[in-house]
C-alpha cells in the first residue's frame, strides 16, 4: 500500500485516496466543433504504460483535493506529486 504525499496534507495511507486515471487530458473547450473521432479520442483513449505514468489522484477521505502524481507502474515508485494546473516537476 502506497504512502502518498498529498500536496495539501502531507504523507497519508493509500486507502485515503482514489485514483482518477491519466492526467493532463484537458476537456475540449468546444466539444461541438469536434468530429466523432476527435471526441472519441478525448472520451475513451487512455494510456496504460509499464513505466513512468502521469496520473490524477484525489484525497477523497482527506482534503478532497485532486492532484497529479508521477508514478512508475513497473515498481510503484512515486516520482512526484504536484497540484492541478502545475507543470510536472519530472519528465
Amino acid at each position, binding site marked *: 500500500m502506497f504512502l502518498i504525499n498529498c500536496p495539501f496534507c502531507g504523507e497519508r495511507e493509500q486507502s485515503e485516496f482514489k485514483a482518477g486515471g491519466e492526467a493532463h487530458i484537458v476537456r475540449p473547450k*468546444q466539444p461541438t466543433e469536434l468530429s466523432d473521432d476527435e471526441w472519441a479520442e478525448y472520451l475513451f483513449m487512455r494510456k496504460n504504460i509499464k513505466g513512468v505514468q502521469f496520473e490524477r489522484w484525489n484525497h477523497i477521505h482527506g482534503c478532497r483535493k485532486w492532484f497529479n502524481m508521477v508514478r512508475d507502474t513497473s515498481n510503484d515508485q512515486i516520482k512526484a506529486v504536484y497540484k492541478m494546473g502545475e507543470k510536472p516537476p519530472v519528465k
Partner: protein
Amino acid sequence: MSNNLRFKTSKFIDETYRISFKFNNKTYFGFKGDTLASALLANGVHLVGRSFKYHRPRGIMTSGSEEPNAIIQLHDNSSRTEPNVRATEVEIYEGLVASSQNCWPSVNFDIGGINNLLSPILPAGFYYKTFMWPASFWEKYEYFIRKSAGLGKSPKVADPDIYEHNYIHCDVLVIGAGISGIIAAKMAAKNGFKTLLVDEKSYLGGSSIYDNSEFSKINNHLTSSWLEKEINEISKLENLEIKTRTSVAAFHGYNFLLARENLTDHLPVNQRENKVRQRLLKIRAKKVITATGSIERPLIFDNNDRPGILLSSAIKKYIDLYGVACGKNNVLFTNNDTAYETAMSLIQRGIKINAIIDNREQIDSKISYEVEKNNIKIYKGYSIVETYGYRRINKISIMKLSKDGQTVIGNKTKLNCDCLGLSGGWTPAVHLFTQSGGKLKFREEDQVFIPDVYPSDQISIGSCNGDFGLEEIVKNTLSSLKKFLNIDNSEYKTIEIISGLNQSKRNIWLLPSDKSIGKTKSFVDYQNDATSKDIKLALREGFRSIEHVKRYTTTGMGTDQGKLGNMHALGIISETAGTKMGEHGTTTFRPPYTPLTFGTIVGRNVGEFFDIFRRTPIHDWHVANNAEFENVGQWKRAWYYPKDNENMHQAVQRESKAARDSAGILDASTLGKIDIQGTDASEFLNRVYTNAWSKLAVGKCRYGLMLNEDGMVYDDGVTTRLGENHYIMTTTTGGAANVLGKLEDYLQTEWPELDVYLSSVTDHYATISVCGPNSKKIVSKVIPDLDLSDEKFPHMSFKNTKIDNIKCRVMRISFTGEHSYEINIQANFGKSVWEKCMEAGKEFNITPYGTETMHLLRAEKGFIIVGQDTDATLTPIDLQMDWIVSKKKYDFIGKRSLYRSDTIREDRKQLVGLLTENPEEVLEEGAQIVADIKKSPIEMLGHVTSSYYSPNLKKSIALGVVKGGKNMLGQKLIIPMENKNINVTVADPVFFDKEGERLNAKL
C-alpha cells in the same frame, strides 16, 4: 510405546506441567512447551496424515511453519474448528483435540490409498486431461474429487472468538528473532530507533538458542548462552517492542506489512473467554530488516516421503529444544556439514546413529572428524536409492554415486533405521523479500537465490541473505547494520567466533536411482504429491515457464506454497531443459506467508459492524411502527409498513391506494443534498445538467438530469434556487457521494475559474414528503402561517418558513404525480415534525409509505429511477426524455456524446411501457423481452426494468428497455418465462394521469 523417547535435558520443557490432549481420538500426554508435533513424536507417533493425491502415509517432516505433511484439523466438532493447521506450530494446551486430515475412514486404513496403487495412471495434469471431457460429466467428477480431496472441514457455526486490527508505526521493523534479528533489534533500539521485533515462534533466539555445540562459539561461550545474555539485555530496552507468536503474512510496497499476532491459541480453551484471539497488525515501518532465516532442503530420491523421514535440522531441534528423540536407530542423509551438528546432538544424548550417508566424496571439517571419532559409519560419496516401511520407515538401500553424480554404481547395501534425517543444504527464506518486490540473484557456488535489488528501505540479514556459517552471519549482519542504520557498532568490535563447520556441499537436485524414472516416486512437493517424474513429464509436454509447470504439476500450490521443494523443482527443470537456474523464472511467493484465519482478516468488521448503517432522524418512528427496512447504499430505508399480518404485496397495495385517495407520508431524508453557492452557481448548473438554469427564478425548483461525459444518464433530482447565488441540489440516495465527487472533480480540474462552493448537507436535514389530495389540508394544519394557495405557492416552488419557531424549507414538488409538499427541517427536529404531520393527518387517514410504494407510484407516472430503469447505457433520448435536453446550450457534460454515430442509432434500447395481455399477470423485473420465439437463436430485444400491480389502475404495469422501442407503440412482444410465454403490448411509459391534472387540481 515406551516413553524413553523423551530426554529430560531441555530447559524449554516444563516437566512439572503435564498436559493431556487427544489426537485421532486417542489420549496422549505432553508437557508445557511442547508443540503438537513434538508431543506426538515423544509418544512415538510419526504417521499423522495422508498425502493429497495418492493418499500415501505421511509423517511429521519439519519443526516449523514450512511443514507440508502434518496438516491437521484443530478443535474437532467445535465452533472453533480450524482446518489446515500445522502440528509443528500448535503449542499444546489442556483439552486440545485434533485429528488428521485427508484420510477416511482413518489414518491407518485409508480407502484413498488405492490411488497410490493406481498412480501409474495418475500422472501430472491427470485431472485436467481426464475430467475435461465431456463437459456435462464435470458435476459427477467434482463430487468424487471433492469427497476424496483433503482440505479439511470448515466450521459450520459462527466463530466465537474475538479478533482485532491494530496499526503500528515504527522506525525499524525486525522480522525474525534469530541471532541476526536479535543483534539488529538491539543495535537499532540502542541507537534511538523506535523498533519492533517480531517472531512467529513462542520463544526468541531462533535455532541458535538451542545451539549447545562446542563447535560454534561466540567469545568463548556456547552460542546459546551468549545469545541468552543478548536477549536478556534487549528485553530491558525502552525503544524496543517485542512480539512473539507473531508471523508476518505479507510485505507490501512502501514498507507496509501485515502480521498476525497470536494471543490465546496456546492457552487452555477455558482461559480464552473474552480475550482477543488474534490481531492483524498493519505495520508501516520506515525501515525493515528481514531476518527470516533459511529452510533446510530435503533430498529428492525414490520414496523419500515415508513417515519417520524428517529434515535433519528438525531432528536436531526436537532433541535439543523439546528433548524428544524422533527415533532410536537413526540414519542421516546429507550433502553438507549441517547434518553433523544433528549427529553431535544425538551422540551427546547417546541416541544411536546407524550411519551417515553423505553425497560428498571428501569431507573435511572439525565436526565431521569428531563424529567419526564416535565410531559413526560415514558412507562418503553414497546416495539412498530406496526406502522401505509402509507406515514408518524401517530400512534403506544405498549405492555409490558415480563421479559425475548422474548415476549410481556398485552393489546395493541395506541398512536398518526407524528415522531418517535429510539435509540438502539450505534455502534462504526470501518469501517476504520477493513479496515486497525484491529481485533475486542466483549464487552458483551453493545453488541458492539471494536478495539482489531492494525495492524499498530494507535489508535482509543472516541466512535469509545467504550467509550460512555462524561467523559469516554475525560479521555480515554487523557490517550491514552499520551501513543501513548509519550507526556505530563498536560494541561488537572484538567479537570472536569459532565454527567447526565448513560450507562445502555437493548439490544434486534429483538423486540418481538404479530404476528408471518411471518406476520411482521421488517427491518434490510433499503436500501436493508432485514428483520429479511429473515435472519431467510437464517439460516433455512442452511446458517451460516455472509458473506453467507449477500449475500443471501443482508443485508449490499447497497451503505450504512449496517452502521445501520449490528449489528442487527449479533445479530439475533447469537440469532437464539444460538451462541456467532462474532462466525460467523463480516462482512468485504470494501473501500470506502462512495461512491466516478469516477471523483475523475481518477483525471486528463482523455482524452489525460489517458495514456502516445510516439511519434517518425518523428511523425510530419507523421501527416503532412496524416498518420493514431495505438497504439503499448504506441507508436503512423504510420499505413498507405491514399492518395486521399483511404481506408485502398487501401492504404496498394499501399504501399506494391511500396516497392517491387521501394522503401519504414518506421519509425522504436519505436523498442526497448538496448546497451550492457562489457567483457562478447558475453557470455551473448549466454545465452539469442537460437543461437550462440561468432563468430559474429565486424561489423556484427544477428537475435536472445529469449525464456522464459519454452521454449516459448518471443521476437526477430536483434543485431549488434559494437565492441569487445559492442553490440546493438533491441527488438520488445511492448517488449522493459520487455526484458530489464528480462535481468537485470538474470544479477543481476543468473549471477552476468558476466561483462555486459545494457542501454536502444530506445529514443536516430531515425531509418529509406529504402527498395526496388531502396533503394541502394537512400541511396547512402543521404550518398555519404558510399561504398554500396556488397563486402564492405554485407547483415547483419553495418557501422559507417556520414550524414552532424552527426554520424550515418547504418545497412543493412531486415524485408521485400527486399534489405534495416536501418539508426540510434541521435533522434533530425531523421526528417531531413527522409526528406532527401524522397527528394532523389522522382525520385524513394519512398513511406512511415506504420505498416500495414510492417506486410503484412513480412507475404509474412513468418516472425513472436512475440505477433501476437505467444502467449507464441509456441516454436521455433513449429514455424518451428529449424534453429535458436543452438544444440552445452550447455545452454541458455529455452533450457532444448525444450525437455520436452510436448514440443516434435508431435501434438502441429505449424505455417503453409494457402492458400484459392478462392485466392480473405481473412481470418479473429482469425478464427478457423478445419478439419472435420461433427463430433460433431467439433475438433478445431488451428486459423488464420495473414491474408492479397498480391498485389505482387495477392492472399490471411495467417499464422496460427494448431495441427500437420508441417506434413500437402498440406492438405485441413476448416475455418468455420458464414454463410460459407472457404476451405484452408496448405502451406509453406514463400510465396514470397523463395530463398531470392531479398536480394542478384545485384542492
